[in-house]
């Protein structure tokens, strides 16, 4: 989407500034709950940004990204269970584990394309879910409380404010990188592979390798969001690998504006905000939300950022973002 607002810096900067103001507003209004609520939004925005790299830029419809969020959570909980609280160990384990798993999953899944790719990523996430559930000594189905949250020197992610600040900084850095990457050689090549993989191969780049690298980076960043989530909840659970989580991440990316820079942030904010509002009305809020998602799919996938883009009507007619879904 080569459109002005979609690629400009205004929206992300505004959003991040808004997020930065939240702890102050929350303290002033004596609503500490807001800080952890918005921390959760920040974390899912990071996960959605990671998915946006694979899905939005790369066109890979991964229905298994919850796997990486879950692995990231357990990369904290498992060492913590054995008494290791060092944040660097958690982070290192998180990135290496998620990177390697993404490499394996990606290498196998990218041998297919289209529907098969979607189903296989879903299956791999399910595999991870069952693997973790069957580890009874690490909590199994009930999940594993985080015995020791990540400490970076004196900085403890187990406290809400340090976690919030860290999540905000991580989101800012990830967003900045995704904005640069979008027009950097790798990003352009990746987006080219989404539009026309045949052509990418014909000019001397290997589409499949570009997609695999994107998938690995995406998995690693998604893992970091999981690490933050485990610190926020002081808990790691197999339910974070549920296929529904993968689906919700996809909804966030598309809702916000697939392939845009601010989209994932907007998507996470609107999704989780709407969920919170609807939950206030009824515990069966999904009965309303489900059809909304169906409607979104039927109506078209411009997303919120895309719609804002159409507002001035000076924008060029938007071409729908084609999805290549892996393989060639």
């Amino acid at each position: 989407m080569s459109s002005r607002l979609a690629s400009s810096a205004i929206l992300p900067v505004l959003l991040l500034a808004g997020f930065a103001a939240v702890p102050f507003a929350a303290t002033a209004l004596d609503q500490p709950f807001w800080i952890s609520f918005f921390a959760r939004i920040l974390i899912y925005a990071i996960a959605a940004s990671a998915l946006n790299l694979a899905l939005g830029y790369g066109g890979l419809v991964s229905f298994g990204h919850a796997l990486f969020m879950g692995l990231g959570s357990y990369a904290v909980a498992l060492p913590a269970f054995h008494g290791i609280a060092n944040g660097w160990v958690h982070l290192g384990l998180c990135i290496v584990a998620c990177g390697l798993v993404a490499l394996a999953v990606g290498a196998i899944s990218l041998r297919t394309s289209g529907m098969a790719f979607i189903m296989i990523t879903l299956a791999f996430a399910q595999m991870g879910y069952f693997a973790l559930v069957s580890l009874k000594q690490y909590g199994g189905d009930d999940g594993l409380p985080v015995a020791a949250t990540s400490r970076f020197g004196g900085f403890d992610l187990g406290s809400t404010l340090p976690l919030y600040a860290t999540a905000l900084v991580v989101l800012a850095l990830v967003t900045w990188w995704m904005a640069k990457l979008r027009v950097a050689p790798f990003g352009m090549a990746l987006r080219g592979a989404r539009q026309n993989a045949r052509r990418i191969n014909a000019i001397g780049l290997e589409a499949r390798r570009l997609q695999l690298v994107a998938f690995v980076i995406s998995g690693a960043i998604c893992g970091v969001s999981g690490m933050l989530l485990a610190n926020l909840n002081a808990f790691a659970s197999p339910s974070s690998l549920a296929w529904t989580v993968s689906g919700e991440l996809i909804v966030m990316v598309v809702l916000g504006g697939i392939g845009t820079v601010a989209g994932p942030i907007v998507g996470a904010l609107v999704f989780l905000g709407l969920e919170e509002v609807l939950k206030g009305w009824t515990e069966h809020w999904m009965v309303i939300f489900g059809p909304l998602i169906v409607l979104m799919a039927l109506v078209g996938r411009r997303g919120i950022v895309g719609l804002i883009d159409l507002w001035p009507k000076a924008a060029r007619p938007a071409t729908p973002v084609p999805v290549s879904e892996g393989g060639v």
Partner: protein
Amino acid sequence: MASLRTEGLVKRYGALLVTDHVSLDIRVGELHAVIGPNGAGKTTLINQLSGELPADEGRIVFGGQDISGLPVHQRARAGLLRSYQITSIFEEFTVVENATLAAMAAKRHAWRFWTPMRDDPVARDAAEAAVSAAGLTSHSDTLAGELAYGQRRQLELAMALAAQPKFLLLDEPMAGMSVQESAAVTDLLRGLKGRYTILLVEHDMDAVFALADRISVLVYGSVMFTGTPDEIREHPEVRAVYLGDETV
């Protein structure tokens, strides 16, 4: 510039012999045209040369190197670039972005994750040169998806040029063009002669006879005759099989 030689190339679809022991010898710097009636197997042949279709038998030697087993992207990196008969470009990118991507691929600059692609002077220069050679400079910043048909064909050509080819495989560059557009592209290709080795597959006989150093006639998957335009014009079998209804 490089040469391209095929030795006994064979492709079968079941019992049907689509490429029948084709041996071509395209010399360095020449513009070699392949003509033939519809269904002769021209696109299948090109797809085997570019690597999108694996040959069943035979060898392909490119600039002295056997590339028979190489996948598409490696042949492209070796300098064997093609343009497609059905336009295959990046619709969401501008003309210059399309060309820069091709140039960047050739320069091996694709694995960069931070500085914008447009800030790469080497790739950018190569792209602008290719866009200019293809006659699209005035549309550099137009989205490829918004180009007119003839301009899309020009971009198709520009992308092959931007990727620093040693050899150009052009699959019906004038497909679907009007007389004026074809004449413009013919002039364009004439300007490329001598700078690149070119294999041109075309139906437009005016262009073929104006441009080609040598012509190979493909009939039912095999090369019936290879010769200069004059030799082709005089050859009685060629006239009968292919040029029968055409005034040359």
